[in-house]
């Protein structure tokens, strides 16, 4: 029996007394692949920030591996939006991946051999080891996103969260990233916030539609798309998720 990785119970969150999320309940097991979809301002990113501990929970409860997000910081991998990556910053790929090891308890100066080996391993996992000493700004959007995934993998997380991982990336790059996520999903739980519903549907086993409230669909295999039926599956699923909890 697979164990619970993420549990959200009766979560309500507001900004300036306006509820952004209301009574959210969600449970993810090992090796689940959840796609979170919904309109802009619907609360997708807020939910991600609450899971990451960036925002403080006011009402409700979030547990990761049975503990609070702050206690599980190093078991969560996080990949920010591609569009938020600073490409003009003078930084090497390996330095970005090594950030995955950073915390206040580690020595301040330099990096240990084990940390460098681990970072190189993570780069190899995403097929970017040959770019270790390249400047981040010299890479394509898809390559940069792979570097961010490698950074998130540095701590061998049990939960990987990705915020719009394929935004502004070409179709081939999107496919490569989702294939990589599919591979990673063999041993970790993945949560993707995405607008690319048709692509996401081929990889996720659960879909959540968030617009203040969360509607979860647990079995979406019949919505798997092909170039021929993709649009119809999308429309059908969206209608269902916007309707009622199933």
């Amino acid at each position, binding site marked *: 029996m697979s164990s619970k990785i993420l549990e959200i119970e009766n979560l309500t969150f507001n900004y300036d007394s306006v509820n952004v999320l209301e009574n959210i309940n969600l449970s993810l097991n090992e090796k689940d692949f959840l796609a979170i979809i919904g309109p802009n301002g619907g609360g997708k990113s807020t939910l991600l920030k609450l899971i*990451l*501990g*960036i925002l403080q929970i006011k009402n409700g409860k979030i547990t990761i591996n049975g503990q609070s997000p702050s206690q599980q*910081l190093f078991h*969560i991998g*996080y990949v*920010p939006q591609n569009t938020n990556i*600073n490409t*003009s*910053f*003078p*930084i*090497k790929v390996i*330095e*970005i991946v*090594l*950030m*995955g090891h*950073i*915390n*206040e308890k*580690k020595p*301040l*100066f*330099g*990096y240990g051999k084990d940390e460098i080996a681990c970072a190189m391993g993570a780069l190899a996992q995403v097929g970017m080891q040959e770019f270790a*000493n*390249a*400047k981040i700004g010299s890479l394509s959007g898809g390559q940069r996103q792979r570097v961010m995934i490698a*950074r998130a993998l540095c701590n061998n997380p049990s939960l990987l969260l990705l915020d719009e991982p394929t935004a502004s990336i070409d179709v081939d790059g999107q496919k490569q990233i989702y294939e990589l996520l599919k591979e990673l999903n063999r041993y970790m739980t993945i949560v993707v916030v995405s607008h690319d519903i048709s692509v996401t549907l081929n990889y996720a086993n659960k879909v959540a539609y968030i617009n203040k409230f969360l509607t979860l669909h647990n079995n979406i295999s019949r919505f798997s798309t092909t170039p021929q039926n993709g649009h119809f599956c999308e429309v059908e699923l969206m209608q269902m998720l916007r309707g009622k909890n199933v």
Partner: protein
Amino acid sequence: MFEIFTVDFMQNAFISGIIVSLISGIIGSLIVVNRMVFLAGGIAHTSYGGIGFAVFFGLPIFLGASLFAVLASVLMAFLALKYKERVDTFIGLIWATGMAIGVILIDLTPGYNVDLMSYLFGSILAVETTDIYAMLSVLAIILVIVIFGYRNILAVSYDSEYAHIRGLSVGLLYTLILVASSIGIVMTMKVVGLILVIAMLTIPVFIAEKISNSLAGMMIISGLISTFFTIIGLMVSYSYNLTTGATIILVSVVGMILFLLFNQILQINNKK
């Protein structure tokens, strides 16, 4: 030609110029990558209040300027973290208040006839041995902070949200960067003055950014470029009897234009 190196005050000028160039290379890199140029300008101008304070109460100028610069940097760090959207308004307010305090306190100082030009455009030729010791101490403090805090400073500078998620005290590190910058800014002001300090902190960094692929490399390269510009500027100002701070900045600007032209020609040739 080489008599310039035998004159006492020029020897001090060269030594202090090199130390301050290294300081500005490190601090300038941090300011640029953290997009704090406006904040740095605010700190520099607020420190003028400290100059007035020191003059009024008969304290060492460096002490007064540093005190105001550090206080301003802590206040600005707090406001930048708490009110991100309105931070430019607050910086403008602190900037103007500092300057006003400086002017009023100098007005109120009985019988004081201050040479404002030396603070506005620098006074590297008037550097004394004690100033050099102070500059060396500041360089040592900044080096310790940057070397031992490098990985955390890099993480916060590159991606503060991720650094926060990884459990770093982003606010504390941000404040540390600003405080270190503020002391470095006061030192740099000694060479080029309040008005030109931002140019010295950003021009060498602008060039270094194009040719380095790491923050550490950027700090070293901009420190060396800054040293080169300062030495050339000192020699030109001595030879033609020009204001040293302004000459250093003009040499830097010419250097930057030449670099951009060279870069452009290189890119055109590569395309062919």
